[in-house]
């Protein structure tokens, strides 16, 4: 079988663990639209992998394949080394889909009881309540909850089965900062217990806060992957801000300057490396104040990676 030979050819030592979920050269198209164009992706126990990308980049398709909701047109998909539809593999996974979906006319404790009954070793109700922050919500009807509360219930449903692999498709959309941080804490707790997590998100600070690895998708292809700092380093640029009378157009002509813009009395410069530009700035304008040099965040890296792809 394909899967097995490929695993044997894997350059890693034989003791390397089988990934919890794996896509190998996965292709998927909807009619003429190519959703995934040869994507390789692995999630291992005890790590958080973040899938980043714009809408339509293929994130949800990748999750759909791993969950067995979709069939790949080509390539191999495995979940715990099995075909993704297998019931015993699905019993090791928890899932929070992007479009939510829960029986609105059931109460929260009923939804939990039903979902727990699908799993051989579910968490206790109390444990679910604490992890997902459902205090005081158990007796409420799901459709009477706020959007953020519903998202927390969905998170509880995802973790109630004590999964070894958790799929979180944009889990914190609609959550306030506090609820988001509670969810992050819970995810870290699960990961510390050895759970693997595949996360898709629009919030880059979420990926920065949680991920061990980041995979950037653009129009169905992996355009970058690595740790958060590797992705950041991929984009060596620095952002320099200061109050200065220098003209943006003048600074833009300096070597190493990629962009220069003026916002009121502030000048903002994007440079490949900060030091030579800063030196020249200070020479050129002795009155310069409020100098700041920022490392590129994941957001800058992400924008640049996808922009480079578009230019290519």
């Amino acid at each position, binding site marked *: 079988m394909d899967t097995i030979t490929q695993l044997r050819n894997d350059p890693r030592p034989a003791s390397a663990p089988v990934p919890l979920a794996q896509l190998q050269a996965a292709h998927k198209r909807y009619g003429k639209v190519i959703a995934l164009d040869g994507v390789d992706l692995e999630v291992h126990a005890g790590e958080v992998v973040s899938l980043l990308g714009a809408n339509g980049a293929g994130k949800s398709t990748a999750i759909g394949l791993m969950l067995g909701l979709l069939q790949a047109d080509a390539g191999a998909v495995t979940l715990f080394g099995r075909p993704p539809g297998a*019931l015993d593999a699905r019993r090791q996974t928890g899932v929070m889909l992007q479009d939510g979906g*829960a029986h609105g006319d059931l109460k929260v404790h009923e939804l939990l009881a039903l979902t727990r009954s699908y799993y051989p070793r579910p968490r206790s109700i109390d444990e679910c309540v604490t992890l997902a922050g459902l205090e005081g919500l158990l007796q409420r009807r799901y459709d009477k909850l706020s959007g953020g509360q519903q998202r927390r219930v969905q998170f509880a449903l995802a973790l109630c089965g004590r999964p070894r692999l958790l799929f979180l498709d944009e889990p914190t959309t609609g959550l306030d900062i506090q609820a988001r941080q509670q969810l992050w804490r819970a995810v870290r707790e699960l990961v510390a217990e050895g759970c693997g997590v595949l996360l898709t998100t629009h919030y880059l600070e979420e990926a920065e806060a949680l991920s061990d690895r980041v995979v950037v998708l653009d129009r169905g292809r992996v355009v970058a992957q690595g740790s958060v700092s590797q992705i950041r380093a991929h984009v060596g640029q620095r952002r320099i801000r200061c109050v200065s009378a220098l003209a943006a157009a003048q600074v833009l002509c300096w070597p190493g300057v990629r962009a220069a813009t003026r916002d009121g009395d502030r000048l903002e410069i994007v440079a490949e490396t900060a030091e030579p530009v800063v030196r020249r700035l200070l020479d050129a304008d002795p009155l310069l104040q409020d100098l700041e040099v920022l490392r590129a965040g994941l957001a800058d890296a992400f924008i640049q990676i996808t922009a480079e792809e578009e230019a290519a």
Partner: protein
Amino acid sequence: MDAAIEFPVETHSFQSWRCYLLEAKYELLRQVRQPAFVLPTLLFPTAFYLLFGVMLSRSAAAAEYMLAGYGVFGIMGAALFGFGAGIANDRERGLLRLKRALPAPAGSWLLAKMAAAMVFAAVISLLLAVLAYTLGGVALAPGQWLALFAVNVIGIVPFCALGLYIGSLVGGNAAVAVVNLLFLPMAFLSGLWMPLSILPDIFSRLAPVWPAYHLGQIAMKVVGHDAGGSVWLHLAVLTVVTVVFFVLARRRLAAAA
């Protein structure tokens, strides 16, 4: 597969029968919590029967005929609205997708919905029997009461299949509209409200087109007012209807997910 990850023993020995029970229990609870479904489903057949079968009825034979007819009418509503429109709603809200992503055994939601429809059919059948016995002056042998009950409860299956197909084709609101378009004309044209013999001949000749006619005829046969067709033929037609619509719906649902 040597690449597969070993699971703890309890994963393999896990008996999931309990989730079938819970699924059915909560499905019933969901339907009971929707007054817009419960009230028409229970009130239409009983109120119509009370009016036409009891108050306006001129003979015990008419009361018997209508007991059988309104029973089939009532359970058909429970199956088409509760099952068909319910599935369309669930599908629209992404519930079926979630069930497939969760380790819910395949088809457990289908069985749960069917069980809920059967409970509604049983309640409708009992309500009608009480009205017929107490107010309508209908006297049947115990075996006849039981047979009528069984026809009503088991008779939902072909209409669940039809409802499933409708629910797989269109969204929630559209499904209610389609079911309404189908439900009332089919009940009338199948002779569930009045004998087709009092209508022009063409109605009797076209009636076998409708699945409701065949279930209606089986129910009428129990009370001795059928048109004289073979039970086996009616059963065969209903079986074919069930299989065809289940297969069609399955294909639609598999493609849509």
